């Protein structure tokens, strides 16, 4: 159920922001619903300005911004109490250690001193910051600094968490852990999370919705599941075994199918051992036929689900529609590369 406009975490209507003659946000209207939302767009699309507008840091030329029903320009204090931000730029107070930094952030958000320290340790434990927390922030590695910034953003238990490139500089394990924490916050604690990033696989992995911003306008907005559905219904099978034999078997049964690359994230079997097939799912009899073919050829089925297009394709198409031939060429060449692969 979609909440009413007043209770929406973020609701923007026709927001216009200009820096001199340059229009950075040009009539942006969008809603951020509870759950995880990805905010994607090319460099200079206006993502950072949009986040600043939500915080009430910039004065708008036109339009309205409401965060939990409040105007950030009129009630910046109340709005910022309910928001936690992880900025893209590394920001810290030189001289403070990791735990002091998180405590400082908690105190600035209104937590009393002792409680702020207790809470800082608790959140850093959850972020797996280890003993590194006692070192000055400016001497920490990028990954630990990112953890400290994340801990500082959530230490005061905000309802809305905005993250700008949260997986920047993280190794694959840390990246996966970070995405897991975000999912936990949204699923188990009911937080609304807005991720601004260029890493589209991250968005596709954890976000429920996506907003594509380009040239200061919202080009695409909606559920990722719906946006990434292929034009014709297709199912995707991941399995181990003689997939080429299975393809021939499917062709013999009149089902159109093709090999594609396996999903990189699917554990525990490595992509080298796995294979994937996309097949036409427009007919109701295709799925039983696929099971039959798998049994006949000895393929072990790991997963069978509705196929989705990569979010990257959706993104590029949206940008191409917005910006004309140059991006359209880029989009089509990307599609050709995928087909060749």
């Amino acid at each position, binding site marked *: 159920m979609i909440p009413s406009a007043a209770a929406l975490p973020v609701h923007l209507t026709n927001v216009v922001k200009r820096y001199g003659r340059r229009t950075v946000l040009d009539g942006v209207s969008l809603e951020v619903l509870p759950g995880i939302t990805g905010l994607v767009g090319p460099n200079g699309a206006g993502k950072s300005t949009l986040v600043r507008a939500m915080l009430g840091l910039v004065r708008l030329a036109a339009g309205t911004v409401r965060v939990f029903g409040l105007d950030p320009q009129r009630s910046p204090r109340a709005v910022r109490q309910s928001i936690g931000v992880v900025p893209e730029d590394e920001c810290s107070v030189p001289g403070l250690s990791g735990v002091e930094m998180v405590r400082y952030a908690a105190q600035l958000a209104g937590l009393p001193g002792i409680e702020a320290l207790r809470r800082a340790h608790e959140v850093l434990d959850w972020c797996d910051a280890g003993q590194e927390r006692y070192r000055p922030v400016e001497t920490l590695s990028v990954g630990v600094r990112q953890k400290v910034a994340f801990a500082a953003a959530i230490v005061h238990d905000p309802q809305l968490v905005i993250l700008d490139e949260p997986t920047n500089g993280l190794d694959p394990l840390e990246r996966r852990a970070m995405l897991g924490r975000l999912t936990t916050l949204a699923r188990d*604690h009911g937080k609304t999370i807005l991720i601004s990033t260029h890493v589209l696989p991250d968005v596709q992995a954890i976000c429920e919705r996506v907003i594509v911003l380009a040239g200061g306008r919202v080009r695409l907005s909606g559920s990722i599941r719906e946006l990434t559905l292929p034009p014709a219904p297709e199912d995707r099978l991941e399995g181990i075994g003689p997939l080429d034999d299975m393809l021939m078997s499917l062709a013999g049964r009149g089902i159109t199918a093709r090999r594609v690359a396996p999903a990189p994230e699917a554990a525990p079997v490595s992509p080298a051992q796995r294979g994937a097939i996309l097949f036409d799912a427009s007919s109701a009899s295709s799925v039983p036929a696929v099971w039959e073919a798998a049994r006949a050829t000895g393929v072990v089925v790991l997963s069978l689900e509705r196929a989705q297009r990569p979010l990257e394709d959706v993104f590029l198409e949206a940008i191409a529609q917005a910006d004309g031939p140059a991006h359209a060429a880029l989009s089509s060449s990307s599609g050709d590369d995928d087909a060749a692969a």
Partner: protein
Amino acid sequence: MPLHDVGYRPWRGERCGYGHAVGVIAGTGIRLAWTSRWLRRAVFFAWSPALLFAASFFAFEQAVDQGQLGTMQEQARAGRNLDGVGVLGAVLARSLGAPPPDGRPLDANSTRHMVWARLLLAFMRAPQAVLLAVVVGLVAPTLISRDLRAKAWLVYFTRPVGKLEYILGKMAILGVLVAAITMLPALALWALGVLVSPSVWVAVATWDLPLKIILASLTLAVPTVLMALAYSSLTAESRIASFAWFATWAACWIAHTALTTADLVAAAEVTRLSREEAAQESFFADEAFGEFATVPPARQRSAPRGFRWLSRAAGLDSEIDRWAWLSPYHALGVVQAWIFGIETRWRAVLPPLVSLLTVTAVSSLVLWRRVDAPARA
């Protein structure tokens, strides 16, 4: 996984109200500033002049206690001992404007009030204002410029911290340090004066001095702190802000000295010319009137050589410093003298007062515009 990891838990406590952030910013800022060894040395050194002034208070009270504010001949006639410390206190009192002995008994209370006020003014004007420039110059330039360089402004303005709270927090960091080197030692001096005086009722007789000390400290702190923070907010390089701060003090001092010296030279020239004219007139007058000719005026009494700097610092210059408004140090001195009730001529006080108010207003405006400028960019 850490042993104490309890997972993420919601927090439902009560948040502190408006103004809490000021204390947090100030507390953290002071703690970070205090890690500088140079600052600790400077603050420690800033208390050392207080020892000299404490000795002055003691000497003066000795003079009062021994009744030596009158002439030495009177004391000798009365059979009292001429104690060295008491004599020093008497000389000190004369240097600070106590009326010369004319045979009548001096009112100890009014003399004490005057001497204490002038001692406190001298203390705040001569050593402490210079030390203040040094200490503020060590701390202030980094306060905002470092936030700009490390993008720490995001730490504040993405949280429920307003511009005013941020500025007040930063001002409080410097305010505490300024208080530590000006107000606290001056109040300690006043308390010491009470302790070494013949009666604790002296505290009642001089009740207004602590208030004047606080007011004079605020006068010292507000424009200087705002100016230093304004410099700091104009650049992400703290050394540039540092340079600008010290350059302002030095350049204004030099300009003041140059202009004052030029005035003195001009005045000396006028005096010389008028003397020459007078000499010519007296030559003719001598010829005409003989013994009725004019005689040169007697040399004015002034403080003993060792105490002249004290007299000057205590605001005993009879000439109006017409260039005081040009230099923060001199302007602050005049306004503080006015607060202590030593300088009462509006013609002397108004230009420095306007100058300091202008500095305060301009610095506040610059700060207000600059502290969140990166967020608006």
